[in-house]
C-alpha cells in the first residue's frame, strides 16, 4: 500500500482494519529516514528496533525519553540518558505510540533558526540552503519531508509555530497549562508549552487528546476538563474572526497577500470577519525578552556538571548571552525596573486579549514577518530571534493557544503560514477553524507540492 502523505489518523485506522501492519509502517518510515535524514539533519537519534504494535511519533530533543539520548541539542548534555520519561512521552507510550527518534533544535530551544544546535543546522526541506525556522526546526523538517507522521515540539515564544510556518506544516501551541511540562528540559517555565506538529489538523486533535490534561507532576497544569478534540473538528460552525491590523505591520507583502487570500476564503465560507484592535506586538517582545531571559538564567543555573552532563564551559554563545541578560534583569536594584514591570505589562496584554475575545472567537494574522531565510542570513538581523517571533510572542506572553497553518507559497516557492489564535483552553475552536481551512483549501496545494519533493 502507498503510505506517502497519510495522516497518523489514517495510519491508525488502516492498522485497526488490518490493511497495513505496524511493522510495515515502521519499516516504511525507517527507510525514508535513511534516505533523507542525512541531507536534512532533522533527526539526531533514531530508534533502530521496532516496538511491536505501536505507531511512530518523533520528539524534539528537549523531551526526556527514558534510556534514549536527550541533549536539547547542547554539548552540555552530550551524553545524557534520562532515567525517566516526560509526561507527554509517557502518555503517548501508553496510547499506542513509540519514540521514533529525537529531533534537532536550537540548543536549549534558544532561537528561531535551529543553527544554534551543537549538532549542526537542520535544513529546510523546501530549500536546503535555508533555515527550517526554530527552535523546533528538526520536528518541522521531519514532518514536512514525511520522515514521521507526527512530531512533538515545544513552544516558548513561537518555537512550534515559527518552524511550522517556514516548513509548511501545521503546528499547535496549546494554552499554557493544558499540556504537562514535566520532563521537558525547562527554558522559560512560565511560557513553555509542548504541542504537536503534523501535515494534518486531525493528527493535532488526535495527539492533543492523548497528551492534554492535569498532571500531578506539573503543578502549573489546569484541572479543566479535556474536551473531545476530534469531535470538535467536524462541527459545522460559523465563526467570528478578528483581524488585528497591527499584526500586519512590517510584514512582507507576499505574506500579507496570501494571508488576506485565506481570510477572503473564510469570509466566502460564511464566517464573519471583523477588524480588531490589539496592542502592538512590540510590547509583547519586550515582556517576552525580559521574562524569558530571567527564567533561562534561573533554569540553566542547574547545569553544573555534577549530577549529569558537562560543566558550564560547554554553553554556546546564545545560551550564555541569555543567561547573562537574565541574571541582569533579576539582579538587585533592577528587578522592579525589568522583571516586575514585565509581569505588570503581561497583565495588560492578557486583558487586551480577553477584551477582544468578547467580540470574536478567534484572531488570525501572519505568523512570521518573512519566509525562510538563507542559512547565514540570521547574523544580519540584530536582536534577530525576537523580531522573527514578534507575531508569535503576544500569544506566548498571554498563555493562550495558537496554531499555524500553511496558506500558500511565495515567489521562491517557500511556504507561508497563517496564525490562528484562540481564547484560553479553547483549542477546540482553533482546530475547528483549521480543519475547515484544510477541507476547503487543501492548504492551497502546499502539502501536495511538499510531498512531491520527497518521493518514496
Amino acid at each position: 500500500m502507498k503510505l506517502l502523505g497519510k495522516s497518523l489518523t489514517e495510519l491508525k485506522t488502516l492498522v485497526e482494519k488490518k490493511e497495513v501492519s505496524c511493522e510495515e509502517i515502521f519499516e516504511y518510515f525507517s527507510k525514508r529516514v535513511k534516505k533523507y535524514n542525512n541531507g536534512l539533519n532533522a533527526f539526531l537519534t533514531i530508534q533502530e528496533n521496532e516496538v511491536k504494535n505501536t505507531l511512530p511519533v518523533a520528539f524534539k530533543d528537549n523531551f526526556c525519553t527514558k534510556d534514549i539520548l536527550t541533549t536539547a541539542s547542547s554539548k552540555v548534555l552530550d551524553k545524557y540518558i534520562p532515567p525517566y520519561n516526560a509526561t507527554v512521552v509517557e502518555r503517548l507510550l501508553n496510547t499506542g505510540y513509540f519514540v521514533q527518534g529525537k529531533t534537532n533544535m536550537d540548543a536549549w530551544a534558544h532561537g528561531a533558526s535551529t543553527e544554534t544546535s551543537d549538532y549542526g543546522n537542520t535544513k529546510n526541506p523546501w530549500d536546503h540552503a535555508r533555515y527550517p525556522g526554530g527552535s523546533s526546526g528538526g520536528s518541522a523538517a521531519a514532518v514536512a519531508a514525511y520522515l514521521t507522521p507526527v512530531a512533538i515540539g515545544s513552544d516558548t515564544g513561537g518555537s512550534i509555530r515559527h518552524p511550522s510556518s517556514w516548513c509548511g506544516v501545521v503546528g499547535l501551541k496549546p494554552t499554557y497549562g493544558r499540556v504537562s511540562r514535566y520532563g521537558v528540559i525547562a527554558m522559560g517555565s512560565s511560557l513553555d508549552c509542548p504541542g504537536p506538529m503534523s501535515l494534518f489538523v486531525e493528527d493535532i486533535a488526535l495527539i492533543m487528546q492523548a497528551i492534554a490534561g492535569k498532571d500531578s507532576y506539573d503543578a502549573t497544569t489546569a484541572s479543566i476538563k479535556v474536551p473531545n478534540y476530534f469531535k470538535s473538528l467536524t462541527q459545522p460552525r460559523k465563526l467570528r474572526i478578528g483581524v488585528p491590523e497591527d499584526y500586519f505591520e512590517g510584514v512582507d507583502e507576499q505574506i500579507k497577500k496570501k494571508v488576506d487570500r485565506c481570510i477572503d476564503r473564510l469570509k466566502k465560507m460564511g464566517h464573519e470577519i471583523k477588524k480588531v484592535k490589539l496592542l502592538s506586538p512590540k510590547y509583547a517582545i519586550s515582556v517576552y525578552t525580559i521574562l524569558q531571559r530571567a527564567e533561562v538564567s534561573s533554569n540553566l543555573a542547574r547545569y553544573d556538571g555534577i549530577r549529569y552532563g558537562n560543566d558550564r564551559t560547554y554553553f554556546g554563545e546564545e545560551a550564555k548571552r541569555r543567561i547573562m541578560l537574565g541574571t541582569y534583569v533579576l539582579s538587585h536594584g533592577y528587578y522592579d525596573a525589568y522583571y516586575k514591570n514585565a509581569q505588570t505589562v503581561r497583565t495588560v496584554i492578557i486583558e487586551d486579549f480577553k477584551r477582544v475575545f468578547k467580540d470574536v472567537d478567534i484572531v488570525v494574522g501572519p505568523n512570521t514577518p518573512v519566509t525562510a531565510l538563507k542559512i547565514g542570513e540570521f547574523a544580519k538581523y540584530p536582536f534577530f530571534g525576537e523580531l522573527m517571533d514578534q507575531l508569535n510572542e503576544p500569544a506566548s506572553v498571554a498563555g493562550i493557544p495558537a496554531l499555524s497553518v500553511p496558506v500558500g507559497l511565495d515567489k521562491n516557492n517557500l511556504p507561508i503560514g497563517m496564525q490562528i489564535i484562540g481564547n484560553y483552553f479553547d483549542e477546540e475552536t482553533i482546530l475547528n477553524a483549521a480543519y475547515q481551512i484544510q477541507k476547503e483549501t487543501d492548504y492551497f496545494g502546499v502539502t501536495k507540492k511538499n510531498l512531491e519533493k520527497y518521493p518514496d
Partner: protein
Amino acid sequence: MKNKSSLLKKDILHLAKLANLKLSGVEITKYEKQFKQTLDYIDNLDKLKTDKIPTTDHVVNLTNVTFDDGKPNVRGLTQEQALTNTKKKGRGYFVVPKVL
C-alpha cells in the same frame, strides 16, 4: 531606581561571576554592544501606564497547587537511577568539588 540601559565591561564581568560563566574578551565586547541594543528596545515598556495594574504570576491564575500528602510518588527515582548520569560518585553519593 538605578540607571538602566547601560552595561559596562565591569558590570558584565560581575554578571558573569554571578552566573558562573567564563567569558572571553571578544565575548565581553560583543555582549556590551548587544545588551545595549536589547535594553534600548525593551525600554518601550516605560511608555505604558501601569501604575495601578497588578502583576501576573501565573497566566491562568492557579493558586496553592500541592501534591497530595501520602500519595505515592510513583515517578521518583531510585538512588541508583539518580546517579546514572554523574561522572563522579562515591558510596552512592554525588562527589562535588570542595567548597570549604
